């Protein structure tokens, strides 16, 4: 039950950080808070016994994405959020002057949009089977007739067929290698398109 308390504390931290990201007026502070939010999510992944996902979440979400945000802010509005904002942008997004405090005022239409998205999403999440339940499709190792589900096949046969125990890597490279090839093509295209869009392909 100690883990449950830790998870609850982490979830509270993550929700608070997410709200803070949405309402912080200082944009660099919002980015740093976003990194903290992602790190909280990464620790939650570890508690859910998914260290592979936690590594990706920490490295990409908290590390690289935050730096990309920082670079974007540095390139556009500047590092100091309040004094860099133009008058039009302040009036549009803040609904008040910069002296109102550290938080933005609530944008009611945006809040309604978020609510319209969050309510059905929450309904779907609450209607899912609990983790580890027999009927939960993603974690059941066998169907009702005793046949192995794909998940069960990977869990049962990875060590025997691939020769190593990490089922995540075996799914990525051995069983679903074609999907990984597609992922790599997407990543390759992203790098090439960055070069093309920024007109830096002449370095090649």
């Amino acid at each position: 039950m100690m883990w449950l308390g830790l998870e609850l504390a982490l979830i509270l931290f993550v929700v608070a950080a997410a709200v803070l990201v949405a309402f912080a007026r200082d944009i660099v502070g919002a980015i740093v808070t976003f990194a903290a939010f992602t790190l909280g999510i990464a620790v939650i992944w570890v508690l859910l016994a998914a260290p592979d996902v936690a590594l990706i979440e920490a490295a990409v979400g908290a590390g690289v994405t935050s730096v990309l945000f920082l670079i974007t802010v540095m390139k556009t509005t500047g590092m100091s959020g309040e004094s860099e904002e133009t008058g039009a942008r302040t009036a549009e997004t803040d609904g008040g002057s910069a002296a109102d405090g550290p938080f933005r005022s609530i944008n009611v239409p945006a809040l309604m949009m978020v609510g319209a998205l969050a309510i059905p999403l929450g309904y779907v999440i609450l209607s899912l089977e609990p983790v580890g339940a027999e009927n939960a499709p993603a974690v059941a190792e066998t169907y009702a007739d005793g046949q192995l589900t794909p998940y069960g096949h990977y869990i049962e046969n990875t060590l025997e067929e691939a020769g190593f125990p990490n089922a995540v890597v075996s799914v990525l490279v051995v069983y679903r290698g074609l999907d990984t090839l597609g992922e790599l093509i997407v990543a390759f295209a992203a790098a090439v398109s960055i070069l093309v869009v920024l007109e830096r392909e002449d370095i090649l």
Partner: protein
Amino acid sequence: MTGDDTPRDVDKSDDGMDSTSESRPDGGTDANAADEDVHGYVPEDDPDPKEAVTEEKPRTETQDTAEDARSGGVVDERVEKTTSPVIQTPVVKTVARILTPFVVAFGVYLTLFGTSLPGGAFQGGVVMASAIVLIGLAFGFDPTRKWIDPLGLAGLFVLGAFLFGGIAVAAVPLGGAILELFVFPLSVEDMVKLAEVAIAALVSGVITGLVIWLAAGYEKAEKDGNATSENGNGNGGDNA
């Protein structure tokens, strides 16, 4: 505040020049050695650290004037001149210099031992790329971009793509389907490790290039020339 400002500025310029001139080659060799281990790829950037050091001088000077401008209350100048979102103190540079080899080693470890432990090629590649991002944050993205051989960076993800694609296609003449790793003479685990190295090379190259080139921004005038780099930076700030 004004009494504090002047000695701090002098200290900062001295420390900045000294620490960068020493630290750039150090971090460079570490990162390069690890890159060499994983990808069998040696970036040819021996002349580049010197070049980066000579490149440092005007940048720290502009940073100094920028500090003065900030104390005068003008923020725009500072933002456009600095090439890193982090204000570059000796503390940040030292921490980055010490941490970088460990970060790269952790990325190599994740890549090569992903078959038997938590981790994998995507994680390892991103961690290795984040070492370069750390250097960029600490020392500025423009010197980092000049320090990294752009051909080598592009070659990294091209190499990864062709290695993985080669593994995929090579299974066909050996009598398997595409990417069927069971038909190779090596064991499946070794083939997976080879594929993981390919994936890690591609991912680290793509992530590094994404950050480095995005930080460089849209500069049509600059043709990667060293003489016009200062002008190019100024134009980049204006255009962006």
